C-alpha cells in the first residue's frame, strides 16, 4: 500500500510542525490489518481459482492436477450438474409472473431515471448488467419456487435461507434489543440468556436440533402426537426440512443481531430521548425519529456481515438433514463440501467461485444502494 495519505484533520496552525510519528500514524494504524489479511487471503484466492480450472487425477505415484479450462464451470452451469445448482425450472404460476413483471418494471424505471440523469457510459453499462442479473435471478426464483412443477436448486435454497434468515434475525434481534434497553428490573438476566445460542459451536447446534427435532425420541414428541403429526416425518418433506434448517439458523444467529443492536442503542446519547419524553413524544415516535437513525449505520453493517456469513451456511443442513431429502436443503457451500469429499476438488472450487461472484455482486449492489440512499458508508 504505497499510498499518498492525507489526513482529513486540519492541523492546528498554532503548532509549528507535525512530528514524525504523527506523519506515520495513518500507515501505522492500517498496515498491520492489511498485511495480515493479505497474507492469509491472497494466496488461497488465486490457488482456488487455479483449482477451479483444473481436475484432480489419480496417477501412478500420486495425484496430478490437470488443466481443463472452464470445464468445471460448464459442467455446473450447462452440464449434468445443472439440475442440482439451478433446480428444475417450469412455467411460473400467475403470481410468479406478476412478481417477475413487477421486478422488470422497477428495473426499467431505474434505468430510465439513470438515463435522464445522464450518468456516464460505464455506470450505465454497470446498471444494465446488474439489472440483467437481477432479472435472471428473479426468474430463477419464480420458476422454481412459484411454479407447479418447479424444484429449487442449491442456489435458490441458499438465497432463501439468507433472505428469510437475515430478515427474521434482524427483526427479532431489534425487537429484543429495544425491550432489553428499557429500565426493566432483571434485564441483565435476559441479556445474558439471549446471548447463549451464539456461544454454542455451530456443529453442536446442528446435533442439538437433530435431537430436538426427532419426532420419536425428542422432547416435542407429545406435541407432534397432539397435532396428529406423529407419522409426519419432517425430514422426508422438502419444505419441512427447509423450515427446520431455517428455525435452527434463526435460533443460532439472532443473538448476533441482538447484542450489536443493544450496544448501539445503549451507546446513543440519552439527552435527545429524555428531551423527547419530557415533550411528550410517543415511544413509536422516539424509535422512529431518534433511535432508528442512530442505529441505522450499525444496522446496515450488521446486515451486510450477517448476509455474507449466511451465504456460507453449512453445518446446520449438513448435520440436521445431510442436505436431504434428495438435495432439497442443500446449500451452495454444502454442495461444494459434498463434491469436495468425493475428491472433485476442481468442481468444488468452481462452486466456491460461483458463490464468490454471487455474493460479491449482491454485496456490491447493497453497498451502492445504501451509499446513494444514505450518502455515507
Amino acid at each position: 500500500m504505497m499510498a499518498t495519505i492525507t489526513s482529513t484533520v486540519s492541523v492546528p496552525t498554532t503548532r509549528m510542525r507535525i512530528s514524525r510519528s504523527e506523519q506515520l500514524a495513518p500507515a501505522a494504524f492500517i498496515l498491520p490489518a492489511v498485511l495480515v489479511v493479505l497474507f492469509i487471503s491472497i494466496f488461497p484466492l488465486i490457488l482456488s481459482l487455479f483449482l477451479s480450472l483444473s481436475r484432480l487425477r489419480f496417477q501412478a505415484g500420486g495425484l496430478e492436477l490437470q488443466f481443463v479450462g472452464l470445464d468445471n464451470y460448464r459442467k455446473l452451469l450447462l452440464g449434468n450438474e445443472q439440475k442440482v445448482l439451478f433446480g428444475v425450472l417450469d412455467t411460473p404460476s400467475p403470481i410468479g409472473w406478476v412478481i417477475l413483471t413487477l421486478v422488470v418494471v422497477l428495473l426499467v424505471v431505474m434505468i430510465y431515471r439513470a438515463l435522464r440523469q445522464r450518468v456516464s457510459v460505464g455506470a450505465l453499462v454497470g446498471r444494465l448488467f446488474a439489472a440483467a442479473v437481477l432479472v435472471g435471478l428473479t426468474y430463477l426464483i419464480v420458476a422454481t419456487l412459484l411454479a407447479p412443477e418447479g424444484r429449487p436448486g442449491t442456489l435458490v435454497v441458499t438465497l432463501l435461507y439468507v433472505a428469510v434468515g437475515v430478515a427474521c434475525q434482524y427483526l427479532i434481534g431489534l425487537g429484543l434489543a429495544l425491550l432489553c434497553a428499557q429500565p426493566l428490573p432483571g434485564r441483565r438476566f435476559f441479556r445474558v440468556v439471549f446471548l447463549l445460542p451464539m456461544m454454542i459451536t455451530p456443529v453442536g447446534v446442528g446435533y442439538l436440533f437433530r435431537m430436538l427435532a426427532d419426532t420419536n425420541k425428542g422432547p416435542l414428541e407429545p406435541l407432534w402426537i397432539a397435532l396428529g403429526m406423529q407419522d409426519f416425518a419432517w425430514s422426508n418433506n422438502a419444505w419441512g426440512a427447509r423450515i427446520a434448517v431455517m428455525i435452527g439458523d434463526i435460533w443460532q444467529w439472532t443473538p448476533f443481531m441482538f447484542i450489536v443492536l443493544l450496544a448501539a442503542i445503549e451507546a446513543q446519547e440519552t439527552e435527545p430521548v429524555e428531551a423527547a419524553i419530557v415533550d411528550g413524544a410517543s415511544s413509536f415516535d422516539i424509535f422512529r425519529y431518534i433511535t432508528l437513525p442512530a442505529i441505522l449505520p450499525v444496522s446496515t453493517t450488521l446486515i451486510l456481515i450477517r448476509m455474507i456469513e449466511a451465504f456460507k451456511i453449512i453445518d446446520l443442513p449438513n448435520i440436521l438433514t445431510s442436505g436431504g431429502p434428495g438435495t432439497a436443503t442443500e446449500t451452495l457451500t454444502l454442495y461444494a463440501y459434498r463434491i469436495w469429499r468425493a475428491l472433485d476438488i476442481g468442481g468444488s472450487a468452481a462452486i466456491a467461485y460461483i458463490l464468490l461472484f454471487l455474493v460479491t455482486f449482491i454485496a456490491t449492489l447493497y453497498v451502492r444502494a445504501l451509499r446513494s440512499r444514505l450518502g455515507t458508508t
Partner: protein
Amino acid sequence: MRSFFRSSSPFRLSLFRMLVSYLILGFWAFLILFPLYWLFITAFKLPAAVNNGPFYIPFVDFQPSLHAWEYVLVEIGNDTVRLFTNTVGVSLISASLALVVGSGAAYALTRFQYRPKVGTVLVFLGCVLLAVVFTVLGVPWPLAVAVAIALFILSLFTIARRFKRALSNNDIAFWLISQRILPPVAVVIPIYVVFQQLRLLDTWVALIITYVATNLPIVVWLMRDYFASIPYELEESAQIDGASRFRIFNQIVLPLSLPGLVATFLFVLVFCWNEYLLALFLTNARAQTMPLAVVAQNATRGPQWWYMSVLVLIMIVPVIAMAIALERYIARGLLVGAVKG
C-alpha cells in the same frame, strides 16, 4: 404536588408496558433455554434413557447418571484437558490480537483518507499471480516470492505511476469484508499448503494467524461504526492540547467505544472458540480444539448424544462466564456529558 410528579415520572415504564415486555422476553428466553435444558439433562442420561423416548425430569422420569461425565473427564480426561487448553489459549489470543489490530484499522478508516492507486493494486496482483504460476511450474517458492517482490518494487516506480485513478477508504473496507465471502471449504487447502511450507501445521501459531485474519474484517466493520459515532470535537480539543494520534486513540477513543469493543471482542472470541473446519485441517493432535471433539462423538455406532452434550456444556460454561463478566460494560450513557462546555 411535587412528590406526585416524581412518582409518576415520565421516565418510568407503565405497568402494562412492563408486563408485555416481560411476556415477550420470557417467551424468547423459554425458546432459548428449553433446548439448552434438553442438552443439560441429556448429559446426565444413560443411553437407554435417550433412546427409549422423551424423558423430561430427572429423578422422576429417569435416573440421572454421571457416566458421560466420567468418560469425558476421567477416561479421556487428558485429551479433554489438552483440547480445552488449546481452545482457551488460541481463542483468547486470537480475539485480543484481532481487536487490537482491527480497531486500529477501523479508527484509521474513519479519521484518515487513504488513496491507494489502482496501478499499485494491479501491479501487486500481477506479481502475486506470477509467483503462484512460477511455484506451480516447479520453481521453489522462496525464489518465486523473491522474484515477485523485486518485480513489484521495480514496477511500482515505473508502470504503476501511469495510473491516475485512486481508491478510497470505502473500497479498502469493502475489500476487507469481501475476504470473508469465500467459504472455508475453498480456502482450506491453500491455507493448509501455506502452513505446511512454513512448518507451522498443528501449532497454535497457525490457528491464531488464520483466526486473526478471518475475523479482522468483522472487527473493522463493527468498530468503524462505533468510531464514526464518537463526536470529533473531543479529539480536536485533545489535538490542540498537543496529544499525539496514538494517545488520542488510546485515551479518548478506545474508552468511549468500550461497549462496542466488548461486544466485538465477545463475538470474535466466540467465533474462534467454535470454529470447526479450519481447525480440522490445520491441526491433528497437539493443537486440536474442542469442536473437533464434539464432532468426533458422532461415531460409527451413531451419535453418542450423552458425550456430545457433556462436551458442548463444558465448552459453553466459560464463554457464559465471560459474557456475564463483560455484560456490564455494555452499559448505557458512556458518552453522556463528554462534550459539554
